[in-house]
């Protein structure tokens, strides 16, 4: 009688076993190389960005000693504390004083490469610390963009020579630019800052969160807990799933057509931007919220109902607290996507050149990704580093936001 099934102690069986193990090893190796590849790409991305971005946080500055009081500019502490202090200093000819001092210390050639807006830095330093006006103080003032390029051995040869000479004299150097985090957009890469865009992003995200989170969670709760399962709820479910996959620029068009039609005066405002992004974020929150609510064990609902909790008490005392970590995860994903979104905001005018930080939800503003997009389009060489620096700020903001959400999620996570 012939054996149809080979006994497990045969050579063929051992051979097949070997093959099976080899397949497993190959699969493991493939998985490992995929991980190594993605980690490598990530490291490359982060390091190149950090490397470029670090110089974006610095700027070429010229050291200019100025004795403001001696130059005949009246600067008492009281005057400097007024809101109009900058205009007051301008009227007294601070710009000329700065220019004259620069010619004295740097020579005609060097002074010509001082940024035309350098006197504003002097003014803000004086306002921050009025005692600087009473003696000779060396201010670090922004050089022109051309000289900054020269310092990096780029741009015209004459300026490269000048930059080398000023550097060896010890008056031209790359300094950390705290002002980058305080100023807003400008045409000169030496004078730009990220604060305007950062504040715009924060305001926009607040509007998005305040709109998308409650509406999304309420919609998810209603659909999961109260809505009857019929054709209408099926249609709603399919629509929500489709909405989550709609290209973001379509939401921008919607914002343009609906929100700007309703509020024509709020073009470029974080309010409109936030509302547009909320539309985009809501489906993500609804979908993840429904899944999280579905995952709450029915036994908990039964337990609560059996002691006589009303449906709304079941939802708010038991279902929602247990679903919250999952809902927050969805919210993080949605908000992170909204934070990095550019296209819909272009449609509602948030790509405008905004030189002052927005002072409210209805003031014209731009946001970080749009600012990055705008700077990457600039011709001036100095904007390359500034763009990288802005990307770093965006990523840090993203990390901060996600970190907060993960902290909240872990806080609400229940174990059983």
């Amino acid at each position: 009688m012939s054996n149809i099934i080979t006994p497990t102690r045969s050579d063929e069986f051992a051979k097949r076993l070997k093959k099976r193990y080899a397949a497993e090893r190959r699969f493991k190796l493939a998985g490992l190389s995929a991980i190594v590849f993605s980690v490598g790409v990530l490291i490359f991305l982060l390091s190149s960005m950090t490397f470029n971005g670090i110089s974006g946080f610095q700027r070429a500055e010229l050291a200019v000693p100025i004795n403001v009081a001696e130059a005949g500019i009246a600067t008492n502490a009281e005057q400097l504390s007024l809101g109009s202090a900058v205009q007051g200093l301008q009227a007294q000819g601070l710009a000329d004083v700065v220019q004259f001092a620069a010619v004295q210390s740097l020579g005609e050639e060097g002074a010509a490469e001082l940024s035309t807006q350098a006197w504003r830095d002097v003014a803000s330093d004086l306002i921050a610390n009025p005692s600087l006006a009473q003696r000779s103080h060396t201010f670090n003032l922004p050089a022109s963009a051309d000289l900054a390029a020269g310092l990096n051995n780029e741009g015209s040869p004459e300026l490269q020579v000048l930059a080398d000479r000023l550097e060896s004299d010890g008056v031209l150097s790359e300094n950390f630019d705290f002002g980058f985090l305080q100023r807003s957009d400008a045409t000169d890469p030496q004078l730009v800052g990220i604060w305007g865009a950062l504040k715009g992003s924060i305001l926009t995200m607040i509007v998005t969160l305040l709109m998308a989170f409650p509406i999304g969670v309420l919609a998810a709760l209603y659909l999961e807990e109260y809505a009857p399962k019929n054709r209408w709820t099926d249609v709603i479910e399919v629509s929500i799933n489709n909405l989550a996959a709609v290209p973001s620029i379509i939401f921008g068009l919607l914002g343009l057509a609906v929100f700007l039609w309703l509020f024509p005066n709020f073009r470029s405002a974080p309010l409109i931007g936030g509302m547009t992004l909320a539309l985009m974020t809501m489906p993500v929150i609804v979908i993840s919220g429904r899944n999280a609510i579905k995952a709450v064990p029915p036994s908990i609902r039964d337990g609560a109902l059996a002691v006589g909790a009303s449906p709304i008490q079941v939802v708010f005392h038991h279902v929602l607290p247990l679903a919250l970590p999952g809902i927050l995860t969805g919210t993080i994903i949605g908000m992170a996507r909204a934070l990095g979104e550019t296209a819909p905001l272009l449609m509602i005018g948030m790509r405008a050149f905004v030189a002052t930080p927005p002072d409210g939800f209805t003031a014209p503003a731009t946001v970080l990704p749009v600012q990055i997009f705008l700077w990457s389009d600039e011709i001036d060489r100095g904007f390359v580093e500034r763009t990288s620096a802005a990307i770093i700020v965006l990523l840090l903001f993203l990390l901060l936001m996600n970190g907060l959400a993960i902290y909240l999620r872990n806080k609400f996570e229940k174990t059983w």
Partner: protein
Amino acid sequence: MTVIHPNLKQTDAKMRASEVSVYYSDKKAIDEVSIDIPSEYVTAFIGPSGCGKSTFLRTLNRMNDTIPTARVEGLIELDGEDIYTSAMDVVQLRARVGMVFQKPNPFPKSIYDNIAYGPRIHGLAETKDDVDEVVERSLRRAGLWEEVKDRLADSGTALSGGQQQRLCIARAIAVDPEVILMDEPCSALDPIATAKIEELIADLSGRYAIVIVTHSMQQAARVSQRTAFFHLGKMVEYGKTSDIFTNPIEQRTQDYITGRYG
């Protein structure tokens, strides 16, 4: 039709079901069951899997309302009041008819909050002292006080399975119900924990009307004074537990308790 054992003297019923049928969509899960549930005894529902005993139990405090396709016909009364009319508030009904489930399902909250939840939502205990008292009394009645009194703030889910089930019983009695329904309360527990629950049921009977669904005939014999045998959605036989187990009238009951099927 149902055979009522001749030895059974029908006393005043706490709950009375008359010709109750339950449908899931079009499928009939319970077929015209009529039963009187006495207030002073433990009533056991026995029968093979899928015979509808749990379904019937869940109609007694309208837990079937949560299943959209379920439909109940017939009359179920609690102290003579129809529980399926709009005059009977379902929240109030469930406060009067508590339930303990097959799998222990404590809330993922502290032991204290598990017990205090019911009294709090019903406003039965206003002050902190009142709630403390209700918690202690309920835990004592459930025989859990000595084991957990030093860790009331710990999560209820950190207890062992048997302790969790006793916590659920304590949670049910914290709102001072009139009837407690138990749906196979020991099926997920080991023999020692089971013995403790059975002891507890004996302690609680008399104070509350208890209805227990069980797979185990021995358990029914041990804890109950009345037994109803269900088969294929029908109640086959109902009578004193001793009569059902020693002197069944129906052939199907006889076959089931002697282990021919089930």
